[in-house]
């Protein structure tokens, strides 16, 4: 048996997400994990979308023109330089949660 006092066993990704999800909508949690590294301010995709669409349409979390179908298609098929996310990375339920979050009423 391994020393347990100094070890963390079974640190599941899902567990981590669940803890974070207590305070945040699921779509926001998934967005932060899978999308923010490119789409948050100062990151690569944010620069690119600024250049392509102007500042108002650069940040996904601030946009009000996104459709659920577009978000899910981008996740599943990729778009421009963004590669697709496979089912083993982002489940259909999580893809839908991101779409719900980015198209929420404000």
């Amino acid at each position: 048996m391994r020393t347990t006092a100094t070890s963390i066993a079974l640190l599941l990704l899902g567990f981590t997400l669940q803890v974070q999800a207590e305070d945040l909508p699921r779509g926001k949690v998934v967005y932060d994990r899978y999308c923010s590294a490119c789409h948050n301010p100062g990151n690569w995709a944010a620069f690119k979308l600024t250049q392509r669409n102007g500042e108002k349409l650069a940040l996904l979390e601030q946009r009000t023109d996104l459709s659920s179908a577009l978000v899910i298609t981008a996740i599943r098929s990729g778009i421009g330089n963004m590669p697709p996310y496979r089912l083993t990375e982002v489940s259909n339920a999580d893809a839908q949660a991101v779409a719900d979050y980015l198209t929420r009423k404000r």
Partner: protein
Amino acid sequence: VPRGPNNSVEGGFQLATVQSPLPPLVSNGDFAKALKEFAAIVGQEWVLTSELDRNAYLDPFAPGDADKHATSTAVCPADVKQIQAIVKTANRYKVALAPIATGKNLAYGGPAPVAYGAVVLDLKRMNKILELNETMGYVLVEPGVNFFDLNEALVSRGSKFWLSGPAPGWGSVMGNALEHGLGYTPYGVHADMICGMEVVLPDGDIVRTGMGAVEGGEEWQIFKLGYGPVWDGMFTQSNFGIVSKMGLWLMPAPEAVVNVSVEIFDEQYVSNLIDALRPLRMNDTINATYTIENPQRQVINGMSITGHSRYELYKGKGAVPHEMFVEALKKKDMGLWKVSFNVFDREAGLNIRLKAIEEGMSKVPTSKMTTIWWRSGDKRPSWLRQDPVLTPLGIIEWAGGRGGHMNFAPVSAPSGERAMKLYNHIQKRYDEYGLDLYLGMLNCGLRSLIINAVTIFDRDNKDECERGVKLYKQLAIDGADMGFGDYRAHISFMDDAAEMYRFNNHALRRLNERVKDALDPNGIIAPGKQGIWPARLRGKRS
């Protein structure tokens, strides 16, 4: 419309569409039987056959037609028992399996198999950090754990250990080390930090390497050598088994780190810079990986990661003229070449190291050295590379369209004369093929440089892709003629890279093939990976 576990084609699988290839030398009937057995093992929802799902396993940075490396389906096990069962079925029907960890080995093929039609064995669902040992400083991970996950685990625990990550952080911790990835810390040669593996062999048997072979021990992730031959290396950059668990040593968090940049303002002194760095790295004064950047790389980095592309600098045909890169750097008072690295120690130790580095660099004409300090307790700046990012992927914006990049990356001794001889030849070939040479000389360990020549291309520009592919193949021949070998290769170039290792009529390849045929007589694990083809598919070598 996305398909998935809950809305795949009702009652079975989509088969035999024009876009759906079969695994090599497998009949439609046998493949259908294999798929049924796979579904019984992992659940039908984790046998992904729809076109949408299969497309997600194409190489997103393919230089040309991504369909050349299309998969027939993906099977996604949840644990090692399922891997064993899948392997047994694959043997029964001789279905080739191409294992991937997270599928983010971008620029080397991503999630795509070498052999057209091979079934991707997607291990991403196996994403547990099985152990994070704060006393002995190691992790035991499954294939699907990426650097974001590891960082999160370390931070949430307030760990006394740091990770050593590659440039972009969404790849697998295990996959990166197995593919000989590099990081920027004293633990930066990640394959050297592997300590103990669990491997499913091609016949479904399970072996644990090193001290993992001792039952009830606590030294699996402590002592690499075990007893008898050390097998760990055999399962890196290979197709001899499926690694299901891997131990990796973690670096104790340092008290302080200094980021050092040395710019040189006259290109003729690059050779002096390489020679001045060598003794400092060899005696571990510089105790982490350094990167030397050419002028193109500095300009392209600056522009692309802020969303700017090549055409904004130059609208002509062929490579951007060298003077334009030089001019762009001069305008910003930047050196034409630059080396940067981090040095790790306590503060007093860093002062001693910096003095020696300053002395060494002062011998390089036109050099200018700058430093930035970080001390334990300070906020972690991006140059520490502890919080994984995806920013470096932005270089593909340089292409101006849907971009990708591929690398020719031969190993050179860190001698100014030898490295620059190779560099100058590579530059000549890039000019000839009309492509921009984005180049970094990546230090690997105490005694080597990887001359990483990167071609950034527009995936929709057929001519540019073709020139890039021809250039790689030409450089592989040239490199071998000059006595160099590539350290890693894209799935389209694995045979070309293997061809560079010519000694004694390719004795190394012949040895690899003998091992392959002994361990994997049906040739089911990743045929063609690293140029190692099983006997029944050896004719597919390009």
